[in-house]
């Protein structure tokens, strides 16, 4: 097991360097530059432009910029935003909990509904429930997030007044964040009603962001279950006269979960893409919106630093998924 973990961790180093290169190059391949954004429509004279490029160090040879970027991140310095003049790491740490909280809620929403729906659909294969739930899953998977978000806001916030429109917390509550997770902070220091407000603000974005993973997980669970339900050991278990609950809940489910866990891990990474739109619609102060704004402004420092930090996190999540995998499936760690 130790060797397995060590090999996984060592593999992260070349991955990290590769990603750093991509993160660095990607934003520079896009046309435009960060300096021009500072002046807006007014524009600036070519001389002023040249001067600022020099001051920011963007006219140095590209490899030199890359090496100093690598050197700095290995020393924990992720730089300062060109547009806002704020430290990238500090902003990331402030904003990331919002994205993480929303992502976790969305994933829980997807898992809690998706897995049972998938199991049920597999067990009752061909039933109305199966066809209906898989039909809905297909619609959910194809749903444009932007449209879906606005639709839910108009219905639940605008017409029915069941939920707030956007934000993380009613603005009458005001407290300094302790953990950055609103559900926890509101309990620690929010006062009466704050936790309820945090929950109610989470509902719509959770549904919007969780819809696609829900659809994917439900479909994946269903097909994985169908596959294992046809296996010999399941037939044997049934033949032994075990209760159906036990056959499905223990023998089949445990094996079916392996691809589902992989899917969940991958979806967790993919949530970032959905988070960008969800955060914009729900005025959710997370890193998705932050990164997109930085790309639009060609804020090289924020884009490369932010991508590295996201990559670090995704890599850590993947590592954990790999290790969990090994715990769930002994064959992997033996290999």
């Amino acid at each position, binding site marked *: 097991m130790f060797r397995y973990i060590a090999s996984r961790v060592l593999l992260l180093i070349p991955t990290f360097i590769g990603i750093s290169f991509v993160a660095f190059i990607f934003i520079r391949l896009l046309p*435009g530059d960060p300096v021009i954004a500072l002046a807006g429509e*007014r524009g600036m004279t070519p001389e002023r432009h040249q001067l600022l490029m020099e001051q920011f160090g963007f006219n140095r040879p590209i490899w030199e910029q890359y090496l100093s970027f690598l050197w700095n991140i290995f020393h924990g310095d992720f730089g300062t935003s060109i547009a806002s003049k704020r430290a990238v790491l500090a902003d990331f740490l402030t904003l990331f909990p919002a994205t993480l909280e929303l992502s976790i809620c969305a994933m829980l929403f997807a898992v809690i509904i998706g897995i049972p729906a998938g199991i049920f659909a597999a067990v009752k294969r061909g039933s109305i429930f199966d066809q209906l739930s898989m039909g809905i899953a297909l619609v959910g998977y194809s749903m444009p997030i932007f449209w879906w978000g606005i639709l839910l*806001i108009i219905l639940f916030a605008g017409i029915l007044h069941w939920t707030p429109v956007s934000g993380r917390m009613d603005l009458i509550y005001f407290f300094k964040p302790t953990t950055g997770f609103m559900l926890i902070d509101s309990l620690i220091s929010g006062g009466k009603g704050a936790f309820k407000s945090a929950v109610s603000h989470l509902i719509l974005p959770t549904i919007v962001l969780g819809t696609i993973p829900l659809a994917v997980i439900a479909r994946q669970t269903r097909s994985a279950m169908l596959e294992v339900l046809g296996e010999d050991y399941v037939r044997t278990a049934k033949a032994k006269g075990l209760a159906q609950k036990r056959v499905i809940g223990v023998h089949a489910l445990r094996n079916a979960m392996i691809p589902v866990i992989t899917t969940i891990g991958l979806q967790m990474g993919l949530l970032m893409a959905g988070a960008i739109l969800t955060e914009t619609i729900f005025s959710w102060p997370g890193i998705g919106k932050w990164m997109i704004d930085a790309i639009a402004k060609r804020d090289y420092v924020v884009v490369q630093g932010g991508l590295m930090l996201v990559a670090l996190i995704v890599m850590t999540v993947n590592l954990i998924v790999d290790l969990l995998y090994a715990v769930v499936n002994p064959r992997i760690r033996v290999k």
Partner: protein
Amino acid sequence: MNTYKKLLAATALAMLTGGLMAGGASAKTLVYCSEAAPGGFDPALYTGGETLDATGQAVFNKLVEFKPGKSEVEPALAESWTISDDGLQYTFKLRPGVKFQTTSYFTPTRDLNADDVVFSFERQKEGSPWAKYVDGASYEYFEGMDFPKLIKSVEKVDDLTVKITLTKPNAPMIANLAMDFSSIVSKEYADKLQADGTQQKFNEQPVGTGPFQFVDYQLNTAIRYEANPTFWKGKVKLDNLIFAVTPDAAVRVQKLKAGECQLTIYPDPADVEGLKADSNLTVMQESGLNVSTLAYNTTQAPFDKAEVRKALNMAIDKKAIVDAVYLGQGTPAINPIPPTMWSYNKSIKDDEYNPEAAKAALEKAGVKDLSLKIWAMPVVRPYMPNGRRTAELLQSDFAKVGVKVEIVSYDWQEYLKRASDPKHDGAVIIGWTGDNGDPDNFLATLLSCQAVGSSNRAAWCNQEFTDLINKAAVTSDVAERTKLYEEAQAVFKREAPWATLAHSLVTTAMNKSVSGYVPSAFGVHNFENVDIAE
């Protein structure tokens, strides 16, 4: 410690340590759904309106300020001023007894004086210890308004007198001093931060003399202010002001309707009818100090000929553009400056929309099989709701006179950069919102020879026009300047470097409980005179 300070300290403590904000029966709180998060809290470091609203408008004052909703200036921190006969020396008498804000992070020991004013400008110069006080600091407005070249010195005469000496006369100077980058900051606060080695706080926790004082900023979420109890005009009517950052226009509308905020800006034109129909809301539509244009590249044949540009202008159905793109919330533009601006030349007639005449004029100019690239701007700006749709309408208008149009677009930063290059290919859809209400801010910035290569996207250098504009800039007599600008507009219309498209209406929507809000001509948002019914 007097009672007031105790109360303030207690409030600040309660706010910082958690618990409910003073949301009780007597506190008047206005929540404003803003469109973007501020970059920071130093008004001189940024050019975006969202930052100017959060700093220069809410927290700071200038020597002179624009009258609410107007483009004329009135005394603010300067009670009065005199300009020397040669137009080079401006002497400002400061208002006595103006207090800087007392906040949880700074307690001033003295009133505003000339040192603060000198510091507010000196700090923005290259070489000042404050020129780079945060990584990447650059004072783009100071540069853009040409202050480094224009201002020779800012000197203290005595505690309440400041003398600004220019290198050449500059009539728009007073208007420039009313802009947010000219906000007067506290030197005492700056010195304290410098001594503590925490200069970056200058951009995080502002201290000004303005109507509201800063309480807290939750990154990309909300800015909280409270009324400045020592405000020199007297405490404002609101007790608390909150900016709720809400980037999506449709969501801002929903938040306003749901009562999550009481005032918002820039709704989608398509949502305006719905807002007007809501009996709880008031919708204000003011003609913005802006213009949208199609800037021909006047260095590129055959668009270097005025008669070709004039002919194309006759082919454009501006009314159709105002109806389809602005949904009626705008007016066709005749001159490069909006009609609400002084010196607007009313006697100028627009090129008549007449495809037949346009065709004939093109033939007369000897132009056949003309094709043209039109650049569609990829972003929504207050002056342009939909660049792509506008380009399509222009394409069909031009097709009617036999001109083939290819629509191109680039990412916004790239668009601005390429359009500034005089060698770019095609005509550019672009526009402008005024910074300070002075015609110079439109005509010199967008059309003078000196702006070719940056903000003059037509790359149009007409000596007659530029001479008029430059002469007006050094003339102090308003009647004389008006005449010069009127003449310049006539030259513009004759030469037609642009097709002027439209001046848009700027929409603000608010709850009926809100009163006293006056939309600014410059697209900034100020809550000094606002009240809210309980």
